[in-house]
């Protein structure tokens, strides 16, 4: 597994990996586990994934980014398993010769990841209860 990791994401290391003498601009997106005002007593998130498909899809997303922005270099890491509030759950880091490419490629990979990569999250509440969440949406109702 290249993209899924079960320990803290080292953003500084990723920045170092994508930067080079020729790539002076790095754009990064870091998603962290948050507790919004309506979220109640969430102490963490448990991520699960269709792991083989995560790898397949991220390979393709990064390959498409490389076609559109040939001089960019992309690194992606996503946590799997339990992640505490405020820890980073995902990092997308893109180095490019110029900042416009770095921002565009970073945004592209983040949006594609959200739309295409099979990862799910379940909130862990203070009470020990668990609750499935959909991406960027309110909690899913149990059917």
């Amino acid at each position, binding site marked *: 597994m290249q993209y899924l990791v079960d320990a803290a994401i080292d953003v500084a290391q990723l920045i170092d990996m994508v930067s080079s003498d020729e790539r002076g601009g790095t754009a990064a997106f870091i998603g962290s586990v948050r507790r919004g005002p309506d979220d109640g007593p969430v102490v963490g998130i448990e991520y699960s994934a269709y792991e083989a498909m995560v790898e397949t899809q991220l390979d393709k997303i990064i390959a498409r980014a490389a076609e559109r922005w040939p001089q960019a270099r992309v690194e992606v890491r996503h946590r799997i398993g339990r992640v505490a509030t405020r820890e980073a759950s995902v990092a997308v880091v893109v180095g490019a010769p110029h900042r416009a490419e770095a921002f565009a490629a970073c945004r592209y990979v983040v949006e594609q990841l959200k739309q295409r990569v099979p990862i*799910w999250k379940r909130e862990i509440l203070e009470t020990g209860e668990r609750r499935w969440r959909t*991406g960027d949406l309110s909690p899913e109702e149990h059917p």
Partner: protein
Amino acid sequence: MWIFRLFFSSMQSPSSISVRCRLFARYAEIVGQDEVTLSLQRDATVAQAVAVLRQSVPDGARLPEQPMVAVNQEHALAGQVLADGDEIALLPPLAGG
């Protein structure tokens, strides 16, 4: 020549295919299992596989009728025709990030 093709084609494609169906996250929770092997008619589509699955597992009717589906790790539309040995996966709404 045309007859030969038909002949070989029917030799290589028996009347039913076997498809591995994987379930994730909330869907696995609903049906209480994360993998089911489905026997489907030849040329069955994704939609037909989902219909068979919903009838053949406990609480399968609680799965959506038109879930997001992947075939062999690629996002697939309901009309895609399946082949013997394919792996299909029912994907609850994605929540990466």
